[in-house]
């Protein structure tokens, strides 16, 4: 087995035992990149020089017999929406094509403290707006399981590179499902932590009340290790919550006896692919055999989550993206007539169609005369959606659903109809409204060979129970061990 195929925890053991060096490991990953990246196209920027330097530094630590953190020397990829000091950060937008952040996001500072090796910046839907990564201004990323299909989105690059073995793990961001959905479609583990668990400082803002950073990994153990590295209150982000961060590896317990799992009937309604439903039902059955009790629950406002999301997220985005005006950073139009003309031309030339659509939708929903009918209404429905979950978690510990209503679809299949694309997020947006932690774990395959994800949700700040259930499921099944043929 080549080094790029292993997990972070397996590699850490080898690094610690000095069976391998971080430089060898990094070279193994770049060899893999040379072989498959031309087909997958998961990266926007590769940072090999920096990576080899970081790997060399980690090796010195290991050779000196220092106590090294679990992610020291581990090759990691970063979604291109997270600011990396001195490394181009584009958000897959033309408007930021030359943007080089003068500072690191807090998650990057934390990862560097661990001594990680940054392999590169990954492709995404422009400004994280999309469900297929087709909205990138630069390239389309291909799903390693079937190169003719999309990897999901918006963190499609970060999911695809872990699936393809061109990174050991990665970071993405999740606003309405942008970690969980691509994780499901690419057959890897992806977690959106509780809103406020991870600092958003240096995460380029899309919808500030929903955005959250989280990991993509090959297994649940690695997920816990990355969470340990990135979670925590940060004075640079006043929405990061000051609660204790547990050692998440303590939750890697192969036992779910006594836990209660709720299965919301609304998630198994019309529009759910029957093969996906079969995989998810089988996964829930497996958990029941392992000792959980399963009960059907109802989350009655589920059907309103997408409509609510497509008011709140674009409204917040329209405000957040006002900063791209050609003045302080990013693209500026040539020879504007005056200041207002510069703003308009810069933005109209720099943003792609989906970003413009959402800015328009959000500006409309916040405009005079419409704010109560749209934005205020959506915020009220958000309360109802959150109340559904509050009531459910009085009865059950974890909620289990499909992550995505369908497996990966063909590239180009849904680009003509924005509303159809929005409906991809039907399983993931409700938990986003409620700020809940959610994890997607591989739970099977449809007949065409594409992976299916099981979404597990828990009450705010109860990532530990999620990890315990996900770990137990993983230890007793083999779906996560399947790799794409690429």
């Amino acid at each position, binding site marked *: 087995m080549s080094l790029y195929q292993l997990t972070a925890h397996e590699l850490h053991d080898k690094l610690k035992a000095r069976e391998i060096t971080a430089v060898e490991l990094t070279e193994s990953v770049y060899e893999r990149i040379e072989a498959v990246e031309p087909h997958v196209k998961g990266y926007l920027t590769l940072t090999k020089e920096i990576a080899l330097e970081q790997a060399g530094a980690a090796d010195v630590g290991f050779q000196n017999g220092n106590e090294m953190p679990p992610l020291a020397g581990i090759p990691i990829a970063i979604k291109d929406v997270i600011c990396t000091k001195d490394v181009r950060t584009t958000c897959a937008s033309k408007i930021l094509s030359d*943007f*080089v952040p*003068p*500072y690191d996001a807090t998650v990057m500072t934390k990862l560097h403290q661990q001594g990680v090796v940054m392999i590169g910046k990954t492709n995404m839907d422009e400004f994280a707006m999309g469900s297929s990564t087709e909205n990138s201004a630069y390239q389309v990323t291909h799903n390693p399981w079937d190169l003719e299909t999309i990897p999901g989105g918006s963190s499609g690059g970060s999911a695809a590179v872990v699936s393809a073995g061109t990174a050991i793990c990665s970071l993405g961001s999740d606003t309405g499902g942008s970690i969980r959905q691509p994780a499901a479609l690419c057959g890897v583990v992806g977690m959106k932590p509780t*809103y*406020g668990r991870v600092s958003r400082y240096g995460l380029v803002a899309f919808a500030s*009340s929903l955005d959250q950073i989280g990991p993509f990994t090959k297994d649940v153990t690695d997920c816990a290790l990355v969470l340990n590295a990135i979670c925590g209150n940060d004075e640079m982000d*006043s*929405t990061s*919550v000051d609660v204790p961060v547990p050692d998440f590896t303590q939750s890697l317990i192969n036992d779910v006896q006594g836990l209660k799992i709720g299965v919301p009937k609304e998630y198994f309604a019309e529009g759910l692919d029957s093969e996906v439903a079969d995989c998810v039902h089988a996964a829930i059955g497996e958990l029941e055999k392992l000792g959980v009790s399963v009960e059907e629950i109802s989350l009655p*406002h589920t*059907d*309103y989550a997408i*409509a*609510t999301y*497509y*008011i709140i997220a674009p409204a917040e985005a*329209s405000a957040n993206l*006002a900063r791209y*005006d*050609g*003045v*302080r*950073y*990013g693209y*500026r139009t040539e020879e504007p*007539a*005056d*200041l*207002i003309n*510069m703003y*308009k*031309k810069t*933005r*109209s030339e720099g*943003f792609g169609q989906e970003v*413009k*659509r959402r*800015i*328009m*939708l959000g*500006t*409309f929903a916040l*405009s005079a005369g419409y704010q109560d*009918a*749209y934005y205020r*209404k959506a*915020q*009220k*429905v*958000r*309360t*109802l959606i*959150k109340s559904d979950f509050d009531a459910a978690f009085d009865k059950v510990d974890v909620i289990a659903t499909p992550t995505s209503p369908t497996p990966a679809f063909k590239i180009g299949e849904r680009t003509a109809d*924005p*509303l159809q694309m929005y409906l991809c997020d039907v399983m993931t947006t409700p938990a986003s*409204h*409620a*700020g809940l932690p959610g994890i997607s774990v591989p739970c099977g395959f449809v007949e065409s060979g594409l992976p299916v994800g099981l979404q597990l949700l828990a009450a*705010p700040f109860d990532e530990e129970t999620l990890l315990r259930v996900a770990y137990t499921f993983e230890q007793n099944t083999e779906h996560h061990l399947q790799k794409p043929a690429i």
Partner: protein
Amino acid sequence: MATITTEGVSHVANLARLEFNEEETKDFTEQLARILDYIGKLNELDTDDVPPTSHIHPLHNITKADVVKTSLPRDAVLSNAPEPEEGYFGVPRVIDTE
């Protein structure tokens, strides 16, 4: 809830500092109308007595100690500016000389 017209789209585009040609305006009008029609399903719900949620956690004002700290150096801040000028962000003339 409202329907949206091409005039409405042009008005909103101006608010958002975007500009569209005639065909784009027509496309956006159709797409936004369809999306707003879908969003209209929220009116099925009576929310008169429901408080709005703007934020998930009950956070109040967060303050920091009033301590002077080093900020980013000016050169670093200006390094991404399209037209930096004498330590400032350069923009087209905004004051009429006439």
